[in-house]
């Protein structure tokens, strides 16, 4: 293959050059490349059957989570994510806690039709050490109805049941 590199070509004598074009050398090189490539292992991922490994920082749909030990809701209804969201896709309704200290969620909706997966909602989330809202690794979002893309609090916490691929 190195024979046809342009650097090698420039120094070639006219006779070599003529021979090269008469013998259609470049066409043969092309054939050799395709012949060789046939035996390379494929790089296709047969998607529903196999999936690629996601990197830890992969940004799937934003979701809410519980505290990993106590199992309580982490969200303190501060409305920061709603404020920062550039697509205006987060909608939060909150109320004062009965004991008068802080607020709690009444409803929390993310409209996935509008979400651009930018992850800006995660940055201002004040809960420590885990943010209440986070970019999950879910990406299988297809649905038949528009309503299916407005995720209520329950869906945000539990996630969407992944559909099994059947052969």
């Amino acid at each position, binding site marked *: 293959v190195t024979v046809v590199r342009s650097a090698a070509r420039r120094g070639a004598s006219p006779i070599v050059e003529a021979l090269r074009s008469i013998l259609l050398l470049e066409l043969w090189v092309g054939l050799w*490349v395709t012949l*060789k490539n046939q*035996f390379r292992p*494929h790089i*296709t991922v047969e998607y529903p059957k196999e999936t690629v490994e996601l990197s830890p920082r992969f940004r799937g749909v934003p979701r809410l989570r519980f505290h990993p030990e106590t199992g309580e809701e982490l969200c303190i209804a501060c409305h920061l994510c709603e404020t920062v969201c550039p697509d205006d896709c987060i909608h939060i309704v909150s109320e004062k806690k009965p004991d008068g200290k802080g607020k709690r969620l009444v409803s929390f909706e993310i409209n996935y039709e509008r979400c651009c997966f930018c992850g800006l909602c995660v940055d201002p989330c004040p809960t420590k050490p885990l943010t209440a809202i986070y970019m999950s690794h879910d990406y299988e979002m297809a649905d038949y109805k528009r309503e299916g893309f407005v995720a209520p609090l329950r869906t945000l916490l539990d996630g969407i049941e992944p559909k099994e691929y059947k052969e």
Partner: protein
Amino acid sequence: MDQKALIEQVVIPIAQVVVAVAVVPLVILYLQLVERKILGFMQVRLAPRRVGWHGLLQPVADAVKLLTKEDTIPAKADRFLFTLAPIVTVAPALAALAVIPIAGTPFHLFGYEVRPWITDLNIGIVYLLAVSSLGIYGIILGGWSSNSKYSMLGALRSSAQMISYEVPLGFALIGVMMLAGSASTVRIVEAQQASGWWYILPQIVGFFCYFISAVAETNRVPFDLPEAESELVAGFHTEYSGMKFALFFLAEYTNMIVVSSIVTIAFFGGWLRPFPNVEGLAWLENGWVPLAPLVLGGFAGWLAGRRLGGGLNPLIVGLLLGGLLGFGIAAADVFGLASMRVPLLSGAFWFTLKVSFFLFVYIWFRGTYPRYRYDQLMQLGWKWLIPLSVGNVIVTGLVMLLRETP
């Protein structure tokens, strides 16, 4: 005419015609799968895999789809010609199969002599050229009657291209006909047996001219300007759907098979084994036996290579091991191979092997080369191939003359 002659000369050829017309479309269904597979592998893809094991039922699914699809005719199309065009394209393509011999010696079935070809015309090659050029009419009619710009342009390109390349196509075969002293396909192969070598050796220039022109004649990559999907949607068959489209498709692939067969017959000794006169290689007559381990070994190595991701090496190892085993079996005369010669099987094996190779070359070209521009196409045809093939005829004639006069 007595009954035996009637059966041998009428009934058997008709049966052969029926078999050919029934078998070739089936072969083409799978040829198309093989094409998609090989193209996929060349592009490091997987190719069809969903329908059946490794996509083995994909052709069936395609056929069902084409057969059941709605057959639309454009509102302003010429309905009669629109329907006629696919028939006119496919009929000559299938008719060309008549003079292709797949083996050398007639065999006997229930006491009747069956020849492994449908008919042996003494003008076989000329017949092939004539019939294959009739296919252009179908393409022009189809393109014109669709009443669509794309179809029309595709048909125009196609007619110009096929008319230009018909000339070197014919000239390239004249050298072979001169050497063989006959235009009959069977006699050409027999002449190659008598001369002791395949005509690829004395006619290598003719072979190149023929094969390049043939690729252009069948409208395949890199000469697929008539359908040029990036420019003309689909060229002359843009407006066709369903079964009519399938007929165009069938014609294209039948033409590929016919062309590969002509190359095999004219330049690669048809049903002959390699080196047909070297006695020491007579075991190649049983090529289908010793080559079976080679193919199996290669296939196993290829599978292992895909599984392990080891690139070419497992394939080479598999081919080597299979080949060694095959050579061993054949050379050591295991199973009494030397006495077990079946000319029909041997002929069919070598013929199929060679034809398959050229069909692979077609696909290989498709996976490798970009399309020619229209003026480049005409330049290649008129400025290179025609002078080259005419020169080949002259040189062949001179050499023959010099060898005859002492």
